[in-house]
């Protein structure tokens, strides 16, 4: 993980108030083009050429117009800071809004153009960056996003492992409209991306590339019948406190990546690498940003202390293992013994799965089977939620039998 871009972003868990409420937009005009063609993604000119030859056309501009129309309905005079042509201005104009163009791409545009456009849009004072695309676009956007600037995806890609997308273009438009009106809370979400070449050869191995700030809609006017957590941030604090309450002296903890595990480190007064696995024990960091091999060396030392991994839900699809925290490999988990995992997450994060199970994919089917079933997820001090865990790889195997 050492070679990651340095955009490991600010992890302040409080919502903040933005004075200037300008929305920026960048579109990946060819996002999703590989999907209808069955190409598992749209990265790179070769694949795009194949997609075009198969008759695909991108719907990313239509989706952008859909979202921008929601803004236009409330703020017809709004200006959107964006890139020229298909990368933004065309859609802005089509939605009836005014485009402030701050970047022009070469033709055809590439991921480098997305990154360069993000830099220009941020410099022009946007307080929220809307982007249209999939995981690859999210990764390009995150790579140049200034620390603390929130981003929100209008879903249009083939790959959607990241947790920074609205559920639909209209939902993104609603969020952006609200964003112009008033401050919205933001929460930390993961940007994951896979090597598409690997997917095409049958291997899903997405990595965690960034943790970014994403706005979300919180309850606004009603529902005061029961005690509610004031915010997602409060939920994260409570869940982290709950995990800390279960920690034992002398035990070694492998703290996985994620916003909730970051909060655990913060409450313990430790510095954690947001995208890495850090080993902590009795209030000290033993090993920061450990590789799989370093973890194995540590865990297989003779007469070592007991050890557990603390993990949280990574990305939008409910993965606990195998997406973004590959350092916690099957070999590492086996070295942890019979009760390897402490799972920590907010109740909101579980309910956001809409009944879909948590997922593990360590690449070791026997281990995945052991980890499947029900797991007690720590949601607060003395509070757990029992939630089903599935191993999608195993289920795929069963369906073939």
């Amino acid at each position, binding site marked *: 993980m050492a070679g990651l871009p340095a955009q490991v972003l600010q992890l302040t868990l409080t919502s903040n108030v933005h004075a200037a409420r300008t929305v920026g937009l960048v579109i990946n005009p060819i996002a999703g083009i590989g999907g209808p063609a069955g190409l598992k993604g749209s990265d790179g000119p070769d694949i795009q050429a194949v997609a075009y030859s198969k008759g695909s056309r991108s719907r990313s501009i239509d989706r952008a117009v859909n979202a921008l129309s*929601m803004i236009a*309905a*409330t703020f017809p005079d709004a200006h959107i800071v964006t890139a020229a042509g298909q990368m933004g201005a065309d859609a802005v104009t089509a939605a009836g809004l005014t485009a402030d163009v701050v970047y022009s791409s070469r033709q055809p545009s590439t991921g480098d153009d997305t990154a360069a456009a993000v830099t220009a849009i941020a410099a022009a004072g946007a307080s929220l960056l809307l982007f249209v695309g999939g995981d690859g676009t999210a990764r390009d956007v995150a790579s140049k996003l200034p620390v603390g600037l929130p981003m929100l995806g209008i879903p249009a890609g083939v790959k959607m492992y990241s947790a920074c997308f609205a*559920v*639909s273009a*209209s*939902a993104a*438009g*609603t969020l952006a*409209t609200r964003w112009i009106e008033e401050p919205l809370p933001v929460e930390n979400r993961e940007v994951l991306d896979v090597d598409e070449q690997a997917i095409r050869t049958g291997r899903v191995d997405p990595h965690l590339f960034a943790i970014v700030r994403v706005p979300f*809609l919180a*309850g*606004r*006017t*009603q*529902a*005061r*019948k*029961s*005690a*509610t*957590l*004031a915010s997602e941030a409060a939920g994260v604090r409570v869940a982290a406190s709950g995990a800390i309450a279960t920690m034992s002296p002398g035990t070694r903890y492998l703290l996985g990546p994620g916003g909730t595990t970051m909060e655990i480190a913060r409450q313990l007064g430790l510095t954690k690498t947001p995208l890495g696995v850090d080993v902590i024990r009795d209030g000290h960091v033993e090993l920061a940003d450990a590789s799989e091999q370093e973890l194995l060396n540590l865990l297989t030392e003779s007469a070592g202390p007991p050890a557990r991994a603390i993990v949280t839900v990574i990305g939008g699809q409910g993965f606990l293992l195998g997406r973004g925290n590959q350092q916690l490999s099957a070999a590492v988990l086996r070295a942890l013994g019979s009760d390897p995992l402490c799972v920590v997450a907010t*109740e*909101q994060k*579980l*309910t956001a799965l*809409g*009944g879909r199970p948590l997922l593990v994919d360590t690449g070791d089917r026997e281990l995945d089977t052991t980890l499947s*079933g*029900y797991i*007690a997820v720590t*949601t607060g001090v*003395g*509070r*757990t*939620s*029992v*939630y*089903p865990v599935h191993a999608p790889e195993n289920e795929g195997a069963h369906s073939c039998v």
Partner: protein
Amino acid sequence: MSLPIAPKPAIRRFHQARWDEPVIFESTTPGERGVLVSQPEPGIRETVGDVLSTLPAGLRREKKAALPEMGQMRVLRHYLRLSQENLGADFNIDVGQGTCTMKYAPKVNEALVGTSKLADLHPLQHTDDVQGILDIIWNLERAVAEISGMHRVSLHTSGGSTAIWTNIAMIRAYHEANGEAETRDEVITTIFSHPSNAATAKAAGYKVITLHPDADGYPDADALRSVIGPRTAAIMITNPEDTGIFNPRVKEWVDLAHSVGALASYDQANANGILGITRARDAGFDVCHFNLHKTFGTPHGSGGPGSGANAVSEALAPFLPGPVIERVDGRYVLDSDRPQSIGKVAPFYGVAPNLVRAYSWILALGPEGIKAVAEIAVLNNNYLMKRILDIPGASAPYAVGRRRIEQVRYSWQELYEETGITSEEIGVRASDFGMHYWTSHHPYVVPQPFTLEPTESYSMAELDEYAAVLAEVAREARETPEVIRSAPHNQTVHHTHHDDLDDPERWAITWRAYQRKYFS
């Protein structure tokens, strides 16, 4: 010519009254009085002397109370105006606040509790002087015991959450009496049980384990099996859950609890769909409670006082709160000598007027009538569900395609994905048609939720009208979303911001606090 009366449109053209009425403290006129009290006659004044000086210093005001000074007529008008600016249960088709069971609270019962026979009683009167109200409480206890199948009942608590607290307090006392308080430190509940079950168990010191539904949307028995054991003090569940889904294996859940020595607690706050159909004790539950304001027709009172009824098996009877009413030689007495009791959970006998209302409600209906309440409530609910699910964009997640008991937690997620209009915005717009609408408890487990519960009170025509309003708002979401986004249009106030309710430095729930925090 204003006759004949023009036919009314299918959708009511509602508009809320707007009086711009100031707060009553700002309407004061110094010296104005509602009643001019006669001065005492000279002889009396001289004989009695300075009454105030006989009071202890701590009871004497140093300054006059800063009450508003207003004539009777102006007080009446003030509150009538405020009532017109509300959208109360007696004004609208109040099916939009599911889980609350907003059934009609019969007005004849107000006449009963307004009589001097009740209103002039004092809870500190000797029991010999209040045999009538004790008789009512005793008989109401018997009725609730019969309805629940339980052995004994307490009517002390003044709200549902206090009643759930009383359930867990009795469970804790039971395990303490058996020497198992130390080892049994976990309580299991479900995500769709009322959140007060988790909250009171936590307040009582238990670790709380919450179960999520299974793949079919029913309470997950396998999840229960995975965590229940010697550390379990109790399962605390609602059934039907807040989704309106009835757990068909509830007996199995209770048996599982008993097999590990745990107790089973049944949140029946809203028993409206099962009255006279199922009984908690018949399913093996050890303890349950009802909210009289949900199930037995007493008013909700906008936050209180309500009334809870706790019903327990014979094994738990010694732990009931006290004092309890006993019948000795045809007379009612209070028994406070109960060493295992959890003690007082409310002052005196409970909320006596609500007990009278509930007793009257039960007697007026009789056993067949009570069963008919449940049957009509379930029929109404499933009729309304059909009407709602006919609206494009509405769905009822979990146990898809199956019927519900007395309420349904619906979702506008499809409409939201298509139009960006949220459930809360739909609720605000529904108020423009004179309809109250709620979403769900937090956190939202069902996305873009709304929860409808028609109860037995509403007619088919009224349910049709409510469904027509939601269909109209859903149509607007697609065709004129800006109308919804800028709603309300027919209300007295626009959006309120409630961040001040989350901030102790800013919230003001009394006039005095408002003055202190904002003007001093």
